[in-house]
């Protein structure tokens, strides 16, 4: 499988006053993948995407979109964009908005096709300003895909959507990937990244911490979560060097640990009645927290 790079940032630095938003950031988006960019607020996600879209210029380093500088229109004719916090003209109807955005592209989808695909038929009579928050997001998503993009940038696409609408949007995202569209997704919903992403890039403090598949990211993380029913007091366990973090949830003891095996041996020794044991590898959320905390510690 050829791994053509569609968009890339290399060695990018960007400073806003005293804040170093990006500090030598590298990122490459390959053809056909869905790359989720994760990171806490202030990690530099939106700055990185802004530079890839040509909305800002890097102080140092380079950005490319389909082999062009992002400011050049040629590269941008092959992308679709859904941004957070954009207010579209409220007096215009969804079809008019779609026709306008589609007109910017060389070979867009038929507007009716997009309307059908996003099930917007029921919204066409109303001006955009009269739509609900979720309906507006659906229209914005339709605008992002109407140009038949090869690369789609989605910034928090499902904020404000109910579960059904979110599932429906995910379905379209998967279809688009199946048709060969590459996607860069920035999201706060880790489950969204887990559900969709081929690859995750974790950012913190303006740098790329790690990148890999969801499973690889998880495996980076040595922590496991042990859950059990025990008569041991949480404070007792908390004092053990094997336990990193201990919480009592209802009647269950939740223990975060790097040494699951040693912890289990000690638990059985101290409480032979120990029951109902579960051992889980950490999810993306825990992995993410740990990775970004480590970077903070290292810095």
């Amino acid at each position, binding site marked *: 499988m050829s791994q053509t790079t569609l968009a890339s940032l290399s060695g990018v630095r960007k400073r806003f006053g005293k804040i170093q938003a990006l500090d030598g950031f590298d990122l490459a988006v390959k053809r056909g993948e869905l790359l989720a960019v994760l990171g806490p607020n202030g990690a530099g996600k939106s700055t990185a995407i802004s530079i890839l879209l040509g909305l800002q210029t890097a102080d140092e380093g380079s950005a490319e979109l389909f082999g062009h500088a992002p400011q050049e229109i040629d590269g941008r004719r092959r*992308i679709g*964009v859904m941004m957070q916090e954009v207010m579209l003209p409220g007096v215009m109807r969804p079809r008019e908005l779609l026709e306008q955005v589609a007109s910017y592209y060389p070979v867009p989808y038929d507007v009716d096709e997009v309307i059908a695909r996003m099930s917007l038929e029921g919204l066409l009579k109303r001006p955009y300003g009269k739509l609900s928050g979720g309906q507006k997001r659906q229209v914005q998503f339709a605008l992002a895909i109407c140009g038949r993009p090869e690369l789609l940038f989605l910034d928090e696409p499902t904020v404000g959507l109910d579960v059904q609408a979110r599932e429906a949007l995910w379905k379209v995202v998967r279809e688009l990937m199946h048709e060969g569209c590459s996607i860069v997704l920035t999201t706060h919903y880790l489950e969204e990244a887990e559900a969709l992403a081929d690859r995750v890039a974790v950012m913190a403090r303006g740098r790329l911490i790690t990148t890999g598949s969801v499973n690889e990211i998880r495996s980076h993380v040595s922590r496991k979560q042990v859950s059990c029913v025990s008569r041991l007091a949480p404070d007792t366990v908390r004092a053990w060097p094997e336990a990193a973090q201990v919480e009592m949830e209802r009647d269950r003891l939740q223990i975060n640990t790097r040494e699951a095996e040693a912890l289990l041996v000690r638990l059985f020794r101290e409480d032979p009645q120990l029951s109902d044991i579960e051992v889980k590898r950490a999810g993306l959320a825990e992995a993410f927290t740990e990775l970004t905390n480590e970077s903070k510690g290292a810095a």
Partner: protein
Amino acid sequence: MNSVSMPASRLWAAYFGEMRFEFVKSLRTPAFAVPTLFFPIMFYLLFGIFLGSMRGNSGMSQYTFATYGVFGAMGPGLFGFGVSLAIEREQGLLLLKQALPQPPGAYLMARAAMAMLFVAIISLMLTLMAVLIGGVPLSISQGTRLFFIDVLGALPFCAIGMFLGSLVSGSASPAIVNLIFLPMAFLSGLWLPLQFMPKFLADIAPIWPAYHLAQMALGTVGAPSAGTTASHVAVLASVTLVFFLLAMRRMHGSGFRLLGARPKRTLAIAAGVTAVVLGLSLSGVIGGKPASKEDAPAATDAASAAADTPVSVAPAGVAAPATPVLANFDEGSEAAAYGVGWTAVGDETRGGNSKATQRLVGGGVAGSKGALEVTGEVGEAIQYPFAGTMFFPVGPPMQGLMDYSGKKALTFQARGDGRRYMLMVISGVQMDAIPLMVDFEAGADWHEVRLDLAKLGAADFKRVRAIGIGTMGPTGPFRFEIDDVRLE
């Protein structure tokens, strides 16, 4: 990597679609459409036509017609850029458009085109109301000129609006735009002629761009105006350029590339197209016509009846001879000291039936040998008749120009049948410029008529074509004598 090229037809369609989108959007936004579209039309109907007709002042009807058109030309640019740009800059729409492959400059072009289209609608509506309801005398050529003055006149206000929109917040922008729009309209004399204003306000009026547009509009409909077309165009073009560049700098500083990745190339193409369009409209429609300098807003048919001959260069006339004497009629001839002499004229060439004849008579002023007697009859075939005698300083008549700007006063002796007569100075580059007219009474005894040229600002004394003495009515027979005409 395969490249996707945008077919030219799709690119044009995108620019055009953007304009249509912008127009529909503006039309559906009451906060924009009501003040820009309906206020000038409604105000003109109320204050220009109904109130004007009650006053019964025909001079005012042309004034208000011209100035409300300028008021209408201000709004769409100021609000379209000032308010919408401020709001869309804040709401992220401008940023999204920049991430999307919106063609370079489409945002600005669509907005400017929308503003000009709104102005075109306003201008046409006002013209229809002025002619059909207000009874404002207006020729097709005047109407066309005014239309282009208003529509192109939207551009400086687009640039000012753009500058404001780049500066202020979306929520503050309507208030700020109104704070500039309404006072500027008032201070430029759009609602109330400047002579009714405190002198210092009238004196500083030329600092407002709307004042310059108004003077061009007033000159076009034959109302009194000041300055030349060239000076007004220069001021308005400079205002447009300066505010546009300031706004672009400010937007660029905030990371907005309104003209795409290669702003200079886009700007050069846009400037080229604009220059061609402006050049064609200015030379073809407005021409090198200086805003006519006229005291009395009469004789508009003189402007419309004459051919439109745009003259782009405006040299001064031949230097006037040192002698102050134009004619004393003592040498047994009707000839003047120079030039083509005195010629009796009627208005037959303009389709009228007024006639005049002239002859030398004895018994000039202060016992001098001769005087020139002019007799005839004023007809009623045309609206603005004229009969009398005319002096052409440089031949051929009406073609040659003489520079009298070094002279201070025009004096002559007159007597006659007790009617009121008119001294007329035809001057300026344009053949159809409305002449300066000053009336005087010719009683039974000789008396001197003296005109201080410095106080007659409304004629172009650098370029005098003819000096006439005669009558514009009332109809019927007339007789007067003149003697000892001097320019000193």
